[in-house]
């Protein structure tokens, strides 16, 4: 299948070369270790992964935060809570006065040894971004594993009890939807209304916002696309749904992604593809240079059609 290179497509909208517009989020992937092994996971995270960010690399991240005014830190994984230095790292980020987001798979919060994490999140005003691909058990478990839905509900109730998602506490809890197969996500606004109604009705759970995220052809989702014979159809759908407005708003333009070993990437997807920052910008935390990284040219590939399709997709949901 011949796909038009993404750079050629964006050139038609005067977006080539795609460049950073400044770094407002440092997204730190603290490791690929996870208690789940979701079918769509672009990280291919799991219990046997050995790639875990060291304390020394975390110290490099903190050094960069101290020397810059990057306002937001977005901690992801794997299950970031499983990094042995996770709590220390969060506390140090909070001391620096940065807005902190943690992407949690929820089930880890129900595992032995992690019981104090929800309270720790609340004490530190951490924004929780929680994965819940659907409000129905069967849909969630078929993507994330048997029993995941019930554990997720239990974790969400714990977070609600702490004041997360109630609107008045200031504790933010956003949910993340991603499609359970080779199709695009629905309208974020419409689905958020469904989620709010159904989560309250079925489980008595409230939350702040729903982020709809498109599955990108990377990692396990790419394996699924190929093994199920859906690759061509799905890529054709992404290309046909190209939205210039979404391409303008892709998240790589204002984040910098840090890998477990300190390598710098334009986004978490490029990270999993091994496509580090390039075009002359430094590729590791040790050579961090805000000026050149803030103006860097983004590395693109056909997977980028996923972020530019339809209403757009980012770690914060739809972009248009």
């Amino acid at each position, binding site marked *: 299948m011949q796909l038009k290179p993404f750079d050629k497509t964006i050139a038609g909208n005067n977006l080539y070369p795609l460049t950073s517009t400044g770094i407002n989020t440092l997204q730190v992937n603290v490791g690929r270790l996870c208690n789940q092994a979701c079918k769509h996971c672009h990280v291919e995270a799991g219990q046997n992964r050995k790639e875990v960010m060291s304390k020394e690399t975390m110290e490099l991240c903190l050094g960069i935060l101290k020397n810059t005014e990057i306002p937001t830190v977005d901690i992801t994984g794997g299950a970031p809570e499983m990094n042995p230095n996770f709590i220390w790292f969060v506390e140090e980020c909070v001391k620096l006065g940065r807005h902190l987001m943690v992407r949690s798979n929820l089930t880890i919060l129900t595992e032995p040894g992690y019981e104090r994490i929800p309270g720790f999140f609340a004490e530190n005003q951490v924004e929780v971004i929680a994965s819940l691909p*659907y409000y*129905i058990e069967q*849909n969630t478990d078929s993507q994330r594993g048997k029993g995941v839905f019930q554990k997720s509900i239990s974790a969400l109730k714990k977070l609600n009890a702490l004041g997360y998602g109630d609107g008045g506490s200031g504790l933010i809890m956003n949910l993340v939807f991603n*499609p359970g197969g080779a199709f695009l*996500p*629905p*309208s974020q606004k*419409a689905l958020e209304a469904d989620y709010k109604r159904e989560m309250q009705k079925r489980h008595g759970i409230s939350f702040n916002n729903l982020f709809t995220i498109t599955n990108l052809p990377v990692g396990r989702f790419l394996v699924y696309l190929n093994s199920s014979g859906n690759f061509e159809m799905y890529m054709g759908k992404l290309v046909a749904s190209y939205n210039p407005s979404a391409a303008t708003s892709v998240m790589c333009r204002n984040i910098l992604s840090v890998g477990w070993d300190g390598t710098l990437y334009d986004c978490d997807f490029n990270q999993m593809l091994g496509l580090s920052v390039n075009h002359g910008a430094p590729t590791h935390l040790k050579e961090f240079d805000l000026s050149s990284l803030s103006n860097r040219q983004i590395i693109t590939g056909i997977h980028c059609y996923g972020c530019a399709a339809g209403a757009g997709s980012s770690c914060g949901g739809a972009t248009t």
Partner: protein
Amino acid sequence: MQTYYSPEDLSKFPTIGEGAPELWKKFSEWYGAVFAEGALTEREKALIALAVAHAVQCPYCIDAYTQTCLEKGSNKEQMTEAVHVAAAIRGGASLAHGVQMKNVIEKISM
């Protein structure tokens, strides 16, 4: 294997416009307007389309509107219920025509 229906043909649908471009243009505009958000949501319209697709047994429409329903946020339970609505109307329509049968029986029987 040669078949009357081929999934690849769905993407060729716009070529129908080659014979009558003005009519195709009008159809396309009208079709787009029909499925736009209005008094009914796009999701509700997609579910209706899915049900009708089953009633008219169009494999292209079933393929397309199954995907559309998922992309509008419907789930399998809702989509299955929509298909049951189509089936109930089809079945009910057959059964309701039984009244015609009864009328004929009554008319020609002593």
